[in-house]
Every structure is written in structure tokens, then in C-alpha cells.
């Protein structure tokens, strides 16, 4: 008992003293659209293999057409959100659908904000 109590005390002290980490903790998505986008991405990941295989049967000149029509129907029966086309690359911080740079997953406004505060690694104001 005493040892555990001591351990607790030590751990608490060590947790507080050496590294006071403070940053933004996001427990919610920015808006509902972002949440829906997240759901779509999850489903797309789940059904990716199946869609690929069924599409391989569909986009085919060797197999009989009847088989391909059946495959068409099958893929249409899959949930709508499983297709990757419905995914929109939104800004990670503001959920802005447009003006998002793919490398940083940020909208142009947020990017500019961080770059000016020197919080983007390797980014510098261009001048030539």
C-alpha cells in the first residue's frame, strides 16, 4: 500500500513538473459535414477490396456480359457511402471544402495564418 501510494505520488510529480504539455485538445469534429466525410472515408476503406474486385469483373471484355450485368447490380447494392468518389478533401481545422492544399490538409487561410506565425516547417515568404 505504501509503495503504491509512493508510486502514485512520484508519478504525479513527474507528470506535472518536467513536461507541462499544453495544446489544443479536440474532442469534437468541426461540423457535421466533416463528420459525414469521416464516415464516408471509413466505409470506403472497408469496401475498397470488394469494389475493386467487382469492378475488375465489370470492366472486362473476356467474361460474358450477363456476368458483368450481375456484377453491376451487385456493386450498386453496396452502401452509397462506400464509394471513394464521395470523399471530399476538407480542411482539417476549419472543414473548408475549397482552397485546401493537399500536402498540409489545410485551407489557404489557416495555412497562411500558421506560416506567418512561423509554425509551418520549411515555409517561408516567397520573394523573387
Amino acid at each position, binding site marked *: 500500500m505504501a509503495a503504491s501510494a509512493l508510486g502514485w505520488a*512520484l*508519478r504525479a510529480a513527474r507528470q506535472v513538473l518536467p513536461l507541462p504539455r499544453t495544446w489544443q485538445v479536440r474532442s469534437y469534429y468541426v461540423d457535421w459535414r466533416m463528420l459525414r466525410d469521416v464516415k464516408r472515408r471509413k466505409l470506403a476503406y472497408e469496401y475498397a477490396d470488394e469494389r475493386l*474486385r467487382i469492378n475488375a*469483373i465489370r470492366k472486362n471484355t473476356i467474361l460474358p456480359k450477363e456476368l458483368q450485368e450481375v456484377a453491376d447490380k451487385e456493386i450498386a447494392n453496396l452502401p452509397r457511402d462506400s464509394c471513394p468518389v464521395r470523399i471530399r478533401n476538407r480542411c482539417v481545422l476549419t472543414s473548408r471544402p475549397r482552397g485546401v492544399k493537399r500536402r498540409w490538409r489545410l485551407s489557404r487561410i489557416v495555412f497562411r495564418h500558421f506560416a506567418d506565425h512561423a509554425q509551418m516547417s520549411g515555409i517561408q515568404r516567397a520573394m523573387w
Partner: protein
Amino acid sequence: MWSRVRGWDAAGGPCRLAMRLLAGPASGREAAGAARREGRPHSKIQKLFSTSNIVSTEKDKSTTSKDSSTDVSSKSQEGTAETPKQKLLDIIGHMKVEVSYRTKLQQLKTREIKKQATNKLEGPDSEGAVPRRTTEDIQRGKPLNPELVEAVSAVASSLPLNKKQTESELLAQLRRHEETTDKQKRGGTIHLRNVISEMAIKRQSPAQRGVMLSRRISLEFDEDGRRTKPERLSPQSSDSRRSLKGGRRLNIFTKASTEPENALKTVSSPTIWDLEFAKEIAAVTAQPPRNGFEEMIQWTKEGILWEFPIDNEIGMDDGAEFHEHIFLEKHLEGFPKQGPIRHFMELVICGLSKNPYLSVKQKIEHIEWFQKYFEEKKEFLQEI
């Protein structure tokens, strides 16, 4: 040279002088032992004991004479046995006297002198010296090496004075040497002479010699004025004298038997409480990083920092050989051998073999899915 002249003993007979004279030119030839010994600085103790000069140089003389004799004999009997002569040379060459055991040697040599004096007294009295020696040989039980005996006879013949006496003396020396070796082998009562002879045969390593020289040269004094270095070095030298691996075993310690750990814990998987406890211990003992290196180590363990040099196939390599990736035809056994389906599957396999991003498992899964799919559609396909 002065040591030899000074060390004229009353017991020294004419043969001794002869040996000493012979030793003069021979010492220059000799490689081991004698030259080294004479080169050593003569300390005060050695000068005090005039007999010790004879003592230290007597065995030297005998060895040198033997060497010279062996050289002579080797010249005379060239083709017959060269390697045993060389062996003899080596044996005699190794039989050096260590300077540190000077006093012990002195005792030994005084004993030897007395014995040889008695022998010499008996020698000229008896006419049949040679047959007596043979009876003594028989009495010992172990006959001497005939080659050595031949060498001894050759030596005796080469020397100008009193062949029989020299022969007898050399034989006696040989016999003593063999006796000591036999006793050592049998593990009999330890005589001082045997111990010394055994130690004499051993070679002194250059490291030891360096240590001893350094000991003599530099003597550090404590605050009290006592010598510290020799005390420290003596246990080391004693250890080196007595080899760690040689010698008889004492059988004090028994070998720790490697018992198989049969006592398995009843709880096969660790409980939640054990895991929690382990986590607690790890958290408590984890020290914050003292420097940037330790921080980077911590990051690498967590997975934040990659391991350098960067391995491009870190998550991908499943340990499968290239042939498992490429030759996938063996998975096509469930499919019909003719028809469009086979054609289609062959295309699928061709595509999969060229795909470097999938693991073998994933590829097999693809093929199996297709197999299942086509089996489900079999009735439909047969209608067509």
C-alpha cells in the same frame, strides 16, 4: 668472465673446469638461458654469495655443455635422428633458472654438489662404472630414452677428460629430470626440487619479465614510507606462476546442474492487475531524458521518430520470397482449365504478380474471393 674465475670451488674437479672452458665459446652460440642470465644485472646478494655464482652458472654450464654436445652429436649422427635431438635441445633450452628463485636454487645446487661429490668419490673407486649405472637404471624401473643415452655417450666421447665420469654425471642428470617428470605425472609427494624443476621448465613470458623489471626500476612509496607497488604486483605474479587451468582439480565446487524450470505458473496469461502493476513500475522508473539523445531514443521507442538508416520496407516486408509473389499459378487449381474464366484469372494473376504493394496474403485473398464468387455464380454461368 670474472664470475667464473672467482667461483672456483674445492669440490670442482677437472671435469668441471673442462665444462667451464667449453662453455666459454659455446655460450656465444647458445640462444636460450645462459646468455640471458649472464646479461642480467648482478645484485648485491649475488656478489655476497660467491658460491652462488657457481651455483647459478653450474647448471648453465651443464646445459651449455649438453647443448654443445648435442651440436657435436648432431653433426656426427646427421641422418639418423634429427628431430629427437632438436627435441632434446628444446627441452634443455627451456630448462632455465628463474632469477627470483635464487636462494632456493642455491640450496638445490648445494645438495647437487654434495651428491655429485659423493658420486665422484665412488666413481674412481669402482672400475665398472658403466655396468653399475645400468643396474641403477634397472632399479629405477623406467629405462632412459636410448637416443638420449646415445647422446650422452657421444658427449662423453667428445670431452677430453674422464669420459666415464662425465657420462655418469650426465646420465644422472637425465634420470633426475625424468624422475621428477614421472613423479609430477603420478602426483606423488612434492619435493622442493621437483617443484623447482617444474617451474624451471616453464617459460617466462615477456610481460612478466617487463613487470619484474618495472618493479625493480620504479618503487613507489606510500605516505608512511612503505613500498606499495611490489605488494600489489606479487599476487599477480603468483597467479601467473600457478596457471589457473593447469594442476589437479580440488573438487570443491559442484557443477550447477541446469534444472529445467518445470514449475510453471498456474496463471498462464498475466492478469489485468499484473499488467497495471507493470505499467505503474514502468511509469515510475521512467526518468525524463537528460539530453537530446535520450529524448530521441524515447521518441524512437514510441514510434514518433523513424529508425535510421531509413528502411523503406518497414511495414511491408512479410518475409516472403520473390517466387511466392510472382508464381501464383498454383492458387489457380480451383478454376476450370478452359474457358473465359481461366483467361480472366490468368490476367488477374499477371496483374497481382506485378504489384509490389500487396503482401502475399492479400494476393491470395483476392484469388480466393474470385474463386468463391465464381462458385456462387456457377448455376448462372451454366445457364449461359
